[in-house]
């Protein structure tokens, strides 16, 4: 495996604030890598460290093996799709896309031809003559994508690429981005606070919390085997159980997590988890049933079509022992 991007104990402090705090990670070439975390968790700073807009306070960043500590952004063969797209308002779409080639000295005819090709890839062939101000949000995003990809970067960085789009467009773009990445084989690194986006698009992801990486793994690993309480809670809103409760339901005295979909409704008597129903939330494909077990609230996902308990009714939850995930770290 070739490593596209490597962080070795990288920190970035702003005064007393430790935006990125001792992060080490490796992103494989050709990966679709997500940096997931709440705002202020350090994921965007990590992205800016790769592009060169931030410099590490400590640690080393390598891109395809080369230490980039001394390399300014313009000489990194890495391109970014900015959150607000940052299209040049005074240039038309074709010139925007051709910009990277222009500053590298590619002739006008040649760079416009390649810009046109790249616009076709993002399905905007007819839009070269327009100004960015005349485009919709989704179209602007495609222009930003084309503008970055035309440079044939070794790594493409995407900062909350779908954040400004409405839901329907967002889902369509998710599929397109994924298809594009697979077709071009370029390493994609994208930052998002949306766990669904990260899980559905990435083939590997890092969960950030307070400047540190809480967990790195495939979406399946992170979802099914969260390493920390934070990950369990942030990715997929798992039931996080304290050590005493884990012990009571047959596990070791450690924090554990149980996915709501792993829980089934059962009679209250004899169930490991039981209590009165405190909330019912209809989610379309099913219903989220929450019970109070005294100290902790636990939720189960009940697929549509199954009978539902009434609020206040005493019910129990059953599960397979294999689904109880005990976390190594607190």
């Amino acid at each position, binding site marked *: 495996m070739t490593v596209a991007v490597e962080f070795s104990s990288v920190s970035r402090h702003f005064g007393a604030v430790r935006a990125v705090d001792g992060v080490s990670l490796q992103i494989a070439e050709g990966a679709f890598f997500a940096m997931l975390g709440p705002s202020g968790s350090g994921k965007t700073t990590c992205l800016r460290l790769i592009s060169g807009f931030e410099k590490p306070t400590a640690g080393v960043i390598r891109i395809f093996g080369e230490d980039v500590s001394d390399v300014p952004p*313009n000489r990194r063969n890495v391109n970014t799709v900015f959150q607000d797209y940052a299209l040049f308002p005074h240039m038309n779409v074709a010139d925007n896309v051709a910009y990277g080639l222009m500053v590298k000295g590619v002739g006008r005819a040649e760079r416009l031809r390649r810009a046109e090709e790249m616009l076709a890839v993002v399905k905007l062939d007819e839009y070269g003559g327009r100004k960015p101000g005349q485009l919709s949000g989704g179209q602007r995003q495609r222009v930003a994508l084309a503008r*970055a990809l035309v440079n044939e970067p070794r790594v493409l960085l995407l900062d909350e690429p779908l954040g400004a789009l409405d839901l329907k467009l967002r889902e369509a773009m998710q599929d397109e981005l994924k298809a594009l990445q697979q077709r071009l084989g370029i390493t994609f690194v994208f930052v998002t606070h949306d766990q669904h986006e990260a899980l559905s698009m990435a083939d590997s992801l890092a969960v950030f919390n307070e400047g540190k990486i809480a967990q790195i793994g495939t979406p399946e690993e992170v979802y099914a085997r969260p390493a920390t309480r934070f990950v369990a809670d942030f990715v997929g809103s798992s039931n996080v159980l304290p050590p005493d409760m884990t012990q009571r339901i047959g596990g070791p005295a450690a924090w554990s997590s149980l996915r709501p979909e792993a829980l089934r409704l059962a009679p209250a008597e004899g169930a490991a988890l039981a209590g009165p129903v405190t909330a019912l939330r209809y989610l379309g494909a099913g219903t989220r049933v929450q019970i109070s077990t005294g100290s902790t609230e636990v939720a189960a996902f009940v697929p549509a079509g199954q009978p539902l308990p009434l609020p206040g009714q005493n019910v129990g939850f059953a599960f397979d022992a294999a689904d109880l995930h005990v976390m190594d770290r607190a």
Partner: protein
Amino acid sequence: MHSERASLGLQIAAIGGLLFLHLPILLIFLYAFTVEERTYQFPPPGLTTEWFAVAWNRADIWPPLYLSLKVAAVSTVLALVLGTLVAGAMARSRFFGREQISLLIILPIALPGVITGMSLRSAFAIMEIPFSVWTIILGHATFCIVIVYNNAVARMRRLSGGLMEASADLGANAFQTFRYVLLPNLGSALLAGCMLAFALSFDEVIVTTFTAGQQSTLPIWMLNELVRPRQRPVTNVVAIVVFAVTFVPILLAYYLTRGGSETAGGGK
């Protein structure tokens, strides 16, 4: 309050105030056509266009006009460079002494011209610098910096910082980013700043009287004519020229920066 209309008295006072600001200037135009050359008799006893030809042929008007244009042009270029540089430094960075620098930029125009003029005069006296075109330019460029600065810094603040990063990200070096991204977006604001600076310099008289020595700029020529009038309508013709040379750039500057929070002139 939105539905409420202004009272008649307020309307009259407001419109009257605006007329008060504009009508006197119109008189300049009227008096350029009067046949009476020794007094300011109103209404003019007769009208003529001969003064424009007389003014054209007056040899004493041309050198001051050239000098004023030269001073204004050089001062504007200097102010453009210095004002843009300082705006570039001040637009985004926070650094120690920033407030003091912004005060220093504004001071030359905030303090009365007599102080700026007298200060320069004192310095020339101490350093025994003889009066020249450059002593005039020194003063003009100094108070024009703030005009360019005001226009440039407002536009830079409005310009998304992401654009410069995007340019660097796409491989442009600092100079290419300046040339292809910053300058095109800054251009109209800089042009507006230049026009205002030019107008301000072309018209300036107070500081100039301290830094010109025996030289005459057009405003100094006019001032002398006001104190010791010769052919009064000729002065009016020159006044119209001065008015036009300052008025047109101001109007252009307004249209160049319209629609932004930075509309030109707010900082004079």
